[in-house]
């Protein structure tokens, strides 16, 4: 799976895979690989939504502190 995966990429990849699998000409020997890939994409989305993947949170934690302290001063 590519490293810089996003929700958008994951979703469109997943759609594509499901369409391919729904196509009657799918070869049985490629099915397993495609299903595996699709399941990985689903898991990626589910995990990221719940922060299990964690890059969203840790990435902006620093920013939260930095901007808020500045904002507080400015706001008063």
């Amino acid at each position: 799976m590519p490293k810089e995966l996003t929700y958008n990429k994951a979703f469109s990849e997943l759609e594509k895979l499901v369409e391919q699998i729904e196509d009657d000409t799918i070869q049985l020997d490629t099915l397993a690989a495609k299903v595996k890939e699709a399941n990985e994409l689903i898991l990626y989305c589910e995990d990221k939504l719940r922060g299990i993947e964690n890059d969203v949170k840790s990435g902006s934690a620093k920013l939260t502190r930095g901007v808020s302290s500045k904002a507080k001063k400015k706001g008063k």
Partner: protein
Amino acid sequence: MWGYIKVGSCNPEGVEYRPPTNPISAKLCYYKVNISQPKSLYICPMPQAIKLSELAYEIQETMEARFEGETFWVTAEISDVKKYISTRRCYLKLVERDGNSTNTELRAVFWANYYNEIELFEKKTKQNFADGIEITCEVKVRFHPKYGLNLDVIKIDVAYTLGTIELERQKTLEKLVQENPKHIKLVEGNYITYNNRLPLPIVIQRVALITAPNSDGQRDFKQELEKNKHGYAFSVTEFLTQIQGDNAHQLILEQLQLVYNNKENFDMVAIVRGGGSQTDFKPFEDYELAKTVANFPIPIYTGIGHDRNTSIVDMMAREHKTPTKVAASIIEHNFEFENSIIELKERLNQQVDYILENAKENIQDLKRLVKLASPANIMKKGFAIITIKDKIIIDPKNIQPHTEIDILLQDQIIYTTVTKKEKNAQRTNL
């Protein structure tokens, strides 16, 4: 040279008498004397001073005679507003301006029994009763020897202020559309802006929150996000500022600028504030703030606590009324995404089940076919296999009279020699 002497102090000859114009002040009436004439000078050489309180009393009497029992409706700007909530009094000035200079300024006061007029005003107009706004009010004129001239305000014409607010609002909206034709359009009564037409990210997780520190709005918004039943994770970056009052629009603009400086880090901006009757609508009617919101490159959700009214800023963004509703709509948005993932997952599983089931059936068919076609099965039905020297003969050309052949039946082999060979005329009957 003329001077005055008080009635009763002397009764001079040849002195011009000025009759009192007001009977009330008869005891204070004066003679006018020509003090440059020697005779007059002899009679009244010095001006006669009276006590200040006497003069004040005279003024009071005069004022009362003119204004007692009468009220006036006046339109004026209010300034120097001082509200004393505990004693329910409000002191202020009513001002009229001529361009930049003040041409009239009178002190006014709301006494406790009229203080509810201010509360009613704030509730109905969604505006703070504060310096700079124009009101129409009913006043009584009052003079007090110690406190001077005051107007007692007994009623505010809320409809007038609502009218001016609406007029002001229409002007601001027209200006927004006229001066930002690319980013703000009025289509069938709705304001279509660059910001409220920005596509939302497929999932919203990184939120810039503009709100007042330690406010209900801040708490409600964060609680709703944190306690979402789906267990979604969010990262909320707070941009805290005062969100009510005279320069709130300026402070909110500053926070938006800070968000803009970090715009890659956010999926959306939430501007929220708690409700309550004392909320002030004015900052969200500001032209500059509305313009910035309309042009902002990250989708903005507003939840500024007005259930019935919509501010101009609301119209430029995506309006969700309350902080809780903003949070709920973010959660709902992500839920929709998860739903579409779940749908795809179901489609995938169904299809895989179908493919596998199909493959299984195909194999079963093949197995059956193979079984039916097996020699053992055929021989059960009375067919035989002919071999010559253990080789199965398919083509009868290889069999000639006197050839030794083996006839393989299900259970037995017959060894025989061919005596005669001819064409099978009954072939089609088999």
